[in-house]
């Protein structure tokens, strides 16, 4: 399908192989990759981390890390082999004929230069025709910023990156990428660091511009849903190889490679999988967590910032309550107040009916025996210097649980319950994968028999297939041990799948609360509606409904 007419072929990659290191340490990041792009075509490279998708995209624009070596193949742009060009020639192509939109807008602009100078820099780098005056550069920059929907572009020129939101920064970067009307754009996870509503608008700006300018795009993403929304063609990569390369609809309706099928299964919304909200509602049980009128205010006077305002909810025992919202919505602050890691400005927190709003010192220690937290990033949540067994047994030792032998027994029990083989007890966390690490973190949280867990974005740092596995684990644990979860997430897809009840937060306030199916099926607030609309995967949902 990708074999277009030679005349309209813009990018032609043949048998490209890339490796790192040498000798027995050689790691192949890309093996015999073949890819063709026609003019104006948008192709999504989809795969998990380590699949080679970034390596491929970076190879195209010639920005592979120094340690990487191209061991074979060609990359031709309009018939010219980029791999054969000199540094100087490549520099004249980059920015002019090939543009790039980076992953993390937060760190992708020089923090010590103004927005204006960074936008106009691209004109100074690629001088076409007579030298342009400062005023010309300025008006050109303003035009570009306006084009990508930056408000008050004149004012923005004098600002520094840290004064802009993530979404605005990404718009600026898109403006820079489109400045010289490139033929090809490399977009490397350009929205993965952004909130879902922002992601939506950015993707619109970006695809519209590409369509208008007839720019071909290599769009790298781990999110199949996003890929299906914007791409003409999807290239699935795994372990350095291209597994599948077909038009979107073809791949969605009939995936050929089993890996693609797995990805697809995870990305496809499935209403029936949402847990039954009424499951335990028969008994009028004391809520596992009950939060009343919670407020958190930072600073005072002019600098006052209301992070959480009047939030109230309850987590029924044995169920999952999800707090969803975008960054800065106050959901993590709420979670930390529940954990009593933060003191609320006002309001109360009850755990299993007990008011813990004012516990301190040893009271907190007692509280944490029954209430534990799982962090977003398992890398920083586990001491890298400790072994798995040390980590899992740490709470046991701290609370003087049993003898050494009993603790060891408990550790293997816990590892077993999170589906980790007990031989892993002696390993250092550095030898584990992200998912395994998160399992260790869960095992540690359960070590002292905690019945209530606060899961703060506990899945967001994981690859999609790993997410699914951990989700399944959490569900099993909930059923087997009667656990209650307060699940903090920005990912509607995951929330829909795991939670019985959901609360939607925005700017510190709870805008909607209710059973998951209800909230997702018939949102009452505009904001919830907006969130749901922004959720990528329109095409997937369409097909699922069909």
């Amino acid at each position, binding site marked *: 399908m990708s074999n277009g007419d030679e005349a309209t072929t813009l990018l032609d990659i043949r048998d490209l192989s890339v490796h790192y290191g040498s000798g027995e340490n050689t790691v192949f990041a890309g093996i015999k990759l073949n890819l063709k792009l026609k003019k104006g075509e948008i192709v999504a490279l989809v795969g998990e981390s380590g699949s080679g998708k970034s390596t491929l995209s970076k190879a195209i624009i010639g920005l592979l890390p120094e340690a990487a070596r191209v061991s074979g193949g060609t990359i031709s742009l309009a018939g010219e082999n980029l791999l054969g060009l000199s540094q100087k020639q490549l520099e004249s192509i980059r920015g002019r004929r090939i543009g790039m939109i980076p992953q993390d807008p937060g760190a992708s602009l020089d923090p010590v230069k103004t927005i204006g100078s960074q936008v106009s820099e691209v004109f100074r*780098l690629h001088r076409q025709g007579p030298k342009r005056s400062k005023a010309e550069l300025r008006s050109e920059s303003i035009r570009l910023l306006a084009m990508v929907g930056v408000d008050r572009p004149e004012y923005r020129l004098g600002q520094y990156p840290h004064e802009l939101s993530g979404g605005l920064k990404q718009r600026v970067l898109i403006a820079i990428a489109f400045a010289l009307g490139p033929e090809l754009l490399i977009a490397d996870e350009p929205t993965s660091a952004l909130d879902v509503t922002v992601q939506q608008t950015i993707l619109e700006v970006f695809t519209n511009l590409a369509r208008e300018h007839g720019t071909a795009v290599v769009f790298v993403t781990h999110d199949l849903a996003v890929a299906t929304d914007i791409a003409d063609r999807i290239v699935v990569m795994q372990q350095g190889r291209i597994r599948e390369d077909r038009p979107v609809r073809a791949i969605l309706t009939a995936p050929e490679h089993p890996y693609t099928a797995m990805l697809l299964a995870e990305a496809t919304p499935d209403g029936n999988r949402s847990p039954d909200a009424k499951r335990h509602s028969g008994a009028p049980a004391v809520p596992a967590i009950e939060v009343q009128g919670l407020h958190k205010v930072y600073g005072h006077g002019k600098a006052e910032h209301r992070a959480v305002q009047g939030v109230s909810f309850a987590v029924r025992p044995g169920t999952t309550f999800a707090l969803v919202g975008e960054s800065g919505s106050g959901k993590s602050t709420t979670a930390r107040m529940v954990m009593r890691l933060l003191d609320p400005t006002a309001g109360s927190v009850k755990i299993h009916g007990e008011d813990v709003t004012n516990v301190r010192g040893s009271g907190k220690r007692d509280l944490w025996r029954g209430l534990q937290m799982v962090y977003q990033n398992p890398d920083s949540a586990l001491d890298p210097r400790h072994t798995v067994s040390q980590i899992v047994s740490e709470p046991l030792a701290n609370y003087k649980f049993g003898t050494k032998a009993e603790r060891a027994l408990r550790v293997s029990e816990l590892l077993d319950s999170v589906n980790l083989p007990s031989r892993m007890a002696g390993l250092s966390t550095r030898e584990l994968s992200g998912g395994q690490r998160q399992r260790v973190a869960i095992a540690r949280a359960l070590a002292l028999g905690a019945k209530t867990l606060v899961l703060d974005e506990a899945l967001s740092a994981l690859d999609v297939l790993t997410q699914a596995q951990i989700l399944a684990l959490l569900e099993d644990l909930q059923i087997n041990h009667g656990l209650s979860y307060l699940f903090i997430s920005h990912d509607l897809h995951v929330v829909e799948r795991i939670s019985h009840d959901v609360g939607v937060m925005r700017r510190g306030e709870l805008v909607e609360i209710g059973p998951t199916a209800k909230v997702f099926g018939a949102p009452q607030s505009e904001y919830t509606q907006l969130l749901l609309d922004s959720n990528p995967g329109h095409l997937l949902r369409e097909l699922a409904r069909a």
Partner: protein
Amino acid sequence: MAAYIARRIGQALLVIWLAYTLVFLAVQLLPNDPVTIFLSADAAASPETIAAMKAQYGYDQPLLVQYFSQLTGLFRGDFGYSLASGQPVADRIGAVVGSTLILASSAFVTAVVFALIVVASATLIRITWLKRLIINLPPLFAAVPVFWLGLVLLQVLSIQLGVMSLFPDGSFASVAVPVFVLAIHVSAPIAQVLLKSTETVYAQPFIDVLRAKGASPSWIFFRHGLKNAAAPAMTISGITVGTLLAGSVITETVFARAGLGQVVLQSVTAQDVALVQGLVLLTATAFVVVNLVVDLIYPLLDPRILKSGTHGAPRALAA
């Protein structure tokens, strides 16, 4: 901003005062008082003479009284009296401080230039072995004893080749060589920090964005990398005040130059307390002034600092 500057000046004064007090206490450790030492040159100096002289300079007073009278003296511009040289401390230091200032500041500028050259070459040169060699220069600079380098250069340049004077005669070589020797020593930490911070900066995604814009390596380094990497190097540069002094003492001794080096050695050897304290006051003041300036320059280098600087971001940088 004004409040920030006021607070920093307050801290600076506090540091000077603490330094002065600390050294006032430290010099009490010295085994003898300056009068006894001064007069023991004359074996026949009678106890009466010693007592009279001590009274004259107030060294017979209780420690606390001495401390406060000296401290109040400072506010009147009275830095005490150097027994060993027979001059007021201010005069003794004043006579030579210019020489050290010239040596130290020239060496500092040269050191910064060295560091820039090293870092620029290490960043821009693509030949691996050459790059490696350059990266290893700062550790080498740091490992060569200052006095040894100075002596060898003098031996070779002055005695064997006869192209420079053994004495400070105002000629270019007699200025440039000591400056070079001191600069080598001072440039090592600056270059090392600059190298490291450049490395950190280059690991950030915006460098890739610049390359994707089509910027050449030198464009990236000079227009972006350097400014981003400068702050930590500035911090270290501010702290080199102490290194500069220590290096100056040795350099001045090797090159028979006038300067604070001689005064430092004399004051400590002769246990000339007033002179030691004067020197501490001077160096502490120099240190805090330089670092104050550094703190005030930060926001120019990095606009983020003023924003996040509500509780002392520059301090955190220096920390």
